[in-house]
């Protein structure tokens, strides 16, 4: 296809999209689907060739908007993976990611045809305490399993931990699967795959870009989380002089696999559902008023003198006034096959196995994530229907420039 004809297609598609968006505005407010004139086939495949730069001061999966699909891979290092071998492994992984995220086949890639539609594919690498130890580097104090939260935790080893983690996210599950395949293939000499967890949001094109996700409880999930580029994002996420030198410009990842009891949730009416989180189901607006992104007013009172937002509501318990003390969250829904013999909260054979891969970025896990999680463990109405079943913490090194690799700062 010539540049001119592609350009025309792109323009045509975008202009049609703008018109459709205007038509949709009113319908969106009430979330009423409307029949649109058939826009015709998308002849441009406009999102497939979209690339997010792999190289830069920060890892791309942190600074880019979450894709429609995500895969987390956790690895345990083989005994023989010493400092030198660890560096060789990380170099290989960065090489795979640098190529495939830019739409090029990996080295020794027998299916390079799969690489040509990255659709915003990103790869983000994280290291657990053991990997940092093998590198001979200083580990931040927070790097290790979270403290136990016995009120809520039902953690399973098969979803927890790992000496290293890779997060792949983008809009195309085929390109994600191919990069995941290259990464596990190139890891065999260094590490074993400990677990793999996959999640999703709405498909690309279903929502306008930047729309807050909905989880499978129907809730608008993550309304107040800072977005990349915000000052609040930077202050919450990037490790600075308080961190070991190799981590500066990086961050940390906490991943909690949170099972959601859909059958129990079925028993709750709209009022109860909204009260449990403190937000309207229809649009995510705080029950204290305003629109989705408006600040929540925890002091607002009703005619009887009670706070409008239940003090035990999720939004009240998770609230942090200073964004620099908060976290940046990135959730993906999982909807996995029901496991053999599983039962629901009423003892019936289970018919769902769903939840949230709750990921969060923060400079300091102990200072930001743990206090919030502690508050939520003590009291959060949502705890009735949610159970953390997996947990992990990793250091996320800064990004790298072309020719370098993520994690190189450990070996300087």
């Amino acid at each position, binding site marked *: 296809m010539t*540049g001119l004809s*592609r*350009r025309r297609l*792109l*323009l045509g598609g*975008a*202009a049609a*999209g*703008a018109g459709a968006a205007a038509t949709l505005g009113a319908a969106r407010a009430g979330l009423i689907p409307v029949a649109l004139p058939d826009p015709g086939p998308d002849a441009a495949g*406009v999102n497939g*060739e*979209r*690339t997010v*730069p792999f190289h830069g001061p920060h890892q791309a999966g942190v600074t880019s908007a979450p894709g429609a699909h995500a895969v987390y891979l956790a690895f345990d290092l083989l005994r023989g993976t010493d400092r030198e*071998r660890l560096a*060789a*492994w990380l*170099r*290989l992984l960065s*090489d795979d990611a640098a190529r495939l995220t*830019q*739409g*090029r086949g990996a*080295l*020794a890639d*027998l299916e390079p045809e799969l690489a040509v539609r*990255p659709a915003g594919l990103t790869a983000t690498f994280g290291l657990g305490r053991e990997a940092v130890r093998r590198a001979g580097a200083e580990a931040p104090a927070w790097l290790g399993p979270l403290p136990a939260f016995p009120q809520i935790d039902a953690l399973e080893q098969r979803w927890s931990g790992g000496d290293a983690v890779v997060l792949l996210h983008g809009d195309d599950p085929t390109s994600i699967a191919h990069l995941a395949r290259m990464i596990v*293939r*190139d890891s*065999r*000499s*260094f590490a074993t795959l400990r677990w793999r967890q996959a999640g999703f949001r709405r498909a690309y094109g279903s929502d306008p870009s930047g729309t807050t996700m909905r989880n499978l409880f129907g809730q608008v999930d993550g309304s107040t989380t800072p977005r990349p580029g915000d000052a609040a994002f930077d202050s919450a996420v990037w490790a600075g002089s308080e961190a070991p030198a190799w981590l500066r410009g990086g961050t940390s990842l906490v991943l909690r696999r949170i099972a959601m009891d859909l059958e129990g949730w079925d028993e709750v009416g709209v009022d109860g559902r909204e009260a449990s989180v403190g937000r309207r189901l229809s649009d995510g607006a705080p029950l204290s008023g305003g629109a989705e992104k408006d600040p929540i007013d925890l002091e607002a009172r009703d005619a009887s003198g009670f706070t409008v937002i239940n003090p035990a509501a999720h939004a009240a318990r998770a609230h942090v006034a200073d964004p620099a003390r908060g976290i940046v969250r990135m959730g993906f829904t999982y909807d996995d096959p029901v496991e053999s013999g599983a039962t629901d909260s009423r003892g019936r054979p289970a018919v769902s196995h769903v939840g949230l891969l709750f990921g969060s970025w923060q400079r300091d896990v102990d200072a930001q994530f743990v206090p919030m999680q502690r508050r939520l463990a003590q009291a959060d109405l949502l705890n009735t229907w949610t159970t953390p079943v997996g947990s992990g913490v990793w250091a996320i090194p800064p990004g790298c420039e*072309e*020719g370098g690799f993520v994690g190189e700062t450990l070996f300087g």
Partner: protein
Amino acid sequence: MHARPLVLAASAAAALLLAGCAPDAASEDAPLTVTDPWVKTAVPEDMMSAAFGTLTNTTDEDITVVAATSDVFPTIELHEVVDGAMAPVEGGFDIPAGESLTLEPGGYHLMIMELPEAIEAGDQVDLTLELSTGATVDLTATAKDFDGGNEEYHGSDMDMGSSE
């Protein structure tokens, strides 16, 4: 309303260009550039390995790669796979002016004939190509675990002299 689509189109076009082909780091002055060099991991008991990549002739003259050498591996041969069997390429790899030759599993490759030591995944293996002009081109191949490309090991029974 019309400004945004234009901006979108421009940035999308830029992204397409970037995604197209990023040249690998290589000296622009070299008569021959090597893109994406890699070598298959192997242990000494395997007796052999192979290196691959794309050789591009940047000059106006035809180039012939006549040999490959290494400080580590005593014998490297220029091979191709014909009808599933490996054979030395007589006279070397000819690369016409301005054209490329891809060395890949199942096709042309650099055959590493003896392995004094293992080639481990992630190793950076230095090799040198010798041209008919006497010029040399250095390359560093990344070692990758690779299960394919085994046709070259079949039938020859490790006896290169008797294979066709």
